[in-house]
């Protein structure tokens, strides 16, 4: 009994290499598409932020952050602000006069600028480089005024610790993980 002779025209070396390369290219393209779609869809980056409706002005943002001064800063919602002459976020509870004297200011670091607009309205601006995130002004503004001052984690300096040291001690449980694509709570209505 004799074996049949192999057919020399069944798969040539050239054809074998061509088919092999085509298969490898398609596998590579499929892997690239799969990996890139997985990265963009499933794994969004998250950062820490303070929910202003839960903040209880406990003072821990100033003392517990790993950064000194804290990455938490007061921000001003101008559309809510009453532009009060007697701003309870700017002045101590019983100021001796409504002027910019240090003894009359509630902010321990003089981080709020009071600017005359027209009688009897004043604009209040936060000087971020001085703000330590103590929330003293936030409490005064929210309790007696419209609550236009509120705290936010500033992401130009926050190092986004995996376990935020302020969140661990936050008395109001106000710290939340939010998408990095939308990292701030913008206050648009009073309180």
């Amino acid at each position, binding site marked *: 009994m004799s074996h049949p002779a192999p057919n020399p025209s069944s798969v040539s070396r050239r054809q074998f290499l061509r088919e092999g390369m085509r298969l490898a290219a398609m596998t590579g393209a499929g892997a690239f598409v799969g990996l890139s779609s997985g990265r963009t869809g499933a794994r969004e980056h998250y950062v820490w932020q303070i929910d202003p*409706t839960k903040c209880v*002005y406990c003072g821990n943002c100033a003392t517990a952050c790993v950064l000194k001064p804290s990455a938490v800063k007061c921000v001003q919602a101008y559309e809510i602000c*009453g532009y009060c002459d007697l701003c309870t976020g700017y002045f101590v509870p019983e100021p001796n006069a409504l002027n910019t004297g240090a003894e009359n200011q509630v902010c321990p670091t003089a981080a709020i600028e009071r600017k005359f607009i027209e009688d009897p309205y004043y604009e209040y601006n936060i000087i971020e480089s001085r703000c330590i995130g103590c*929330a*003293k002004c936030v*409490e005064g503004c929210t309790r007696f005024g419209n609550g236009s001052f509120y705290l936010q984690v500033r992401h130009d300096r926050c190092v986004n610790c995996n376990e935020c040291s302020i969140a661990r001690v936050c008395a109001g449980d106000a710290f939340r993980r939010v998408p990095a694509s939308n990292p701030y709570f913008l206050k648009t209505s*009073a309180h």
Partner: protein
Amino acid sequence: MNFRRPFNPSRRRFLTETARASLGLALFAGARTARSATAVNPFAYDVRKYETTDPKLIAYRQVTAFKCPLPDARRLCLVGTDRLAVAAGNKVALLDRTSGASSAEIPLNNPVRCVTEGPDGSLYAGLRDHVEVFDAQGKRRATWPGFAGRPWISSLAVNAEFAFIADAGNRVVYRCDLTGKAINHIGNRDRDRGIPGFVLPSPFLEVELHPDGLLRVTNPGRHLIEAYTFEGDRATAWGRPSMGIEGFSGCCNPVALAILPDGRFVTCEKGLPRVKVYSQLGEFESVVAGVESFPENAKVGSGEKPGDGVKASLDAVVDGQGRVFILDTVTGSIRVMVRNQAG
């Protein structure tokens, strides 16, 4: 040579040491928790000394209290001789003045901001931008046209000829006839007439008719009660800012006003929720209810309780016997206060 002896405790000793270590850890954790719970905030906005009232200044006592049966109670007024009307949610609730029992409800299509009774028994309900009029049975008689600009009607006062509508959004009081047609504006800033204008950081503007024939209007941003003629001339004003009991606290108070039968004033404040009596000349006289009387209201905004600080206000009305009815908008409760005999 010195070899250390291997640690080979007995079972009893092992258990004893483990229990001791666990106890120590538990005590440490407990102490730490207690310390954090009682930790004093070095950055607190400290107004504690203004939250207690000198008992010698309190001239009223509470005789009864009841809760408004509807949520979101905002303002109240007297109706007839024995009832109260409360603007709450999208309704006006009519309550018995002594028991608080609900006798009727008038539904409206939008939130009711304020309510008052006219001399003929009609009820005037202020919505954000217009006024609706109901007869004594609660049947709608008229819907007045809305106001232009950014209206936020916060108070009403009606006599036999005119309706006075306080619009906090436009910072003005309108004098209207009883069909709702505006006759003139009161309180607009006018330097030539010596009218400084209303300053209203939050939407509280109250108007009342005084027995002396003038209007009294609150100007919270200036911490003033101002008197105006019906034509809009500013006759007088009194008030000063102070966290102390004799003044009006915070950025913008008083938020509500009532007038005693003899013409003296009852004022309500937010932030430091308190109700006080002033003479006709604006001199502080006594306290109806201090901050201690409104613990839930005081917590809103103070950080102890999250909530809407703008909603955390008080309103008051006074009946012919001098009884003061105080509405706490946080709890929805209505307190009935009478003057102490000795006070």
